[in-house]
């Protein structure tokens, strides 16, 4: 039973097709099969949020989804929002405001924050802390993460206003 199945998922705009067992966790598909190593494995028990990706517009912990469930879906990881030469405002803000120390939780933090700012473009500190509560950081004490997200929100809102 449970022979390999054919799956097709879109990751960061690129369609990927492969054979896998249905029980493969999406985080392993991304990291080991597709070599997309931005999403990290922290606790692997749905708590820490290091593996967070966006799937069809929802923030999801990729350790808690089978690849079979993700078949046909559109996934965005940290690699899909910006790179060294074109940092996303959140990536830039985390850099400028020391929103990370060891950096292990950062890809999950930032990809979750993209969704948070989509839903609440100008969040209060409380809304940031509540909206980021599925992501754990053991270095920063969160203060600079909050500052980084506030700074990115301000920059993104200013850019939006300038464009209008």
């Amino acid at each position, binding site marked *: *039973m449970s022979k390999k199945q054919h799956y097709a998922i879109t990751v960061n705009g690129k369609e990927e097709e492969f054979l896998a067992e249905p029980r493969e966790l999406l985080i392993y598909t991304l990291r080991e099969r597709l070599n997309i190593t931005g999403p990290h494995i922290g606790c692997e028990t*749905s708590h820490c949020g290091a593996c967070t990706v966006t799937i069809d517009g929802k923030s999801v*912990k990729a350790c808690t*989804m*089978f690849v079979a469930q993700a078949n046909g879906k559109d996934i965005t990881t940290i690699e899909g929002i910006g790179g060294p030469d074109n940092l996303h405002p959140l990536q830039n803000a985390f850099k400028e405001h020391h929103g990370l120390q060891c950096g292990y939780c950062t890809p999950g933090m930032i990809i979750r924050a993209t969704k948070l700012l989509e839903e609440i473009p100008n969040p209060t500190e409380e809304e940031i802390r509540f*909206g980021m*509560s599925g992501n754990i950081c053991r270095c920063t004490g969160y203060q600079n993460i909050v500052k980084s997200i506030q700074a990115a929100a301000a920059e993104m809102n200013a850019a939006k206003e300038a464009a209008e």
Partner: protein
Amino acid sequence: MIPAAFEYYRPKDMAGVLSILEEHGDDARVMAGGHSLIPMMKLRLANVPHLIDLQDVDGMSGIDVSTDSIRVGALVTQADIIDNERLTEAAPILKEAALQIADPQIRYMGTVGGNVANGDPGNDMPGLMQCLDAVFTVVGAGGERNISARDFYEAAYMTAREDEEVLTSVTIPLPKGGYAYEKQKRKIGDYATAAAAVQIIKDDGVCGSASIAMTNLSDTPIFSEAAGAALVGTTVDAAALDAAVTAMLGDIDPTEDNRGPVAFKNHVAGVILRRAVERAWSRA
């Protein structure tokens, strides 16, 4: 953290789901968001040789608010509940409770149907649904039947739903009066040390009716009829609150675990119920 191998099915309709359940009996399980079942499978506490993913089954993702009741499809997520303004206007206690479940990522995936059908005493929706006197609709080969939330829970993970039945929706009589869902937890994402759901009606400054249910203080949610009755006819003063807490403590049966010993849980249950009643009364 790799679960045992399984056959995966993603049927397009309920007939397809039921035929797989009929063929494989209790070797098959349905899954909505999977955020209770997948962790259990990863820990190999649940063995599911045939896994039926409900995500493509139509007709279970709607929220319908009518003049006297609310129908919530089993695949409605906690995030859907939080975002639905019409629902929040009709039954604000649902949003208040949903916001206290797990964390944002999990609320995008976790569903009402999974939360109530799973039978985990730590889940928040079962107690809430008992407080609201909701009815669960399940469907099987023999057709649909309705089961009161207050009769649904038999023991931890044991419910009135048969193995070959699927819970499809929850129907809630339109709640009236003041409300509160109060939950004590050790940290975000944790299950309750104690939680209380309260709906209360105030008539001319006197309590006309009160419905109270408690979470994670027994191996099932506890609808405490006696605690509600202790408030009726009072002005919800200190003596009435004491009587309600005493009545509630007679109905729960907590066990010692990593959230604390029995005496602590009884203490927290009392604190949480007081807070919930006071807040509900202030909104009535």
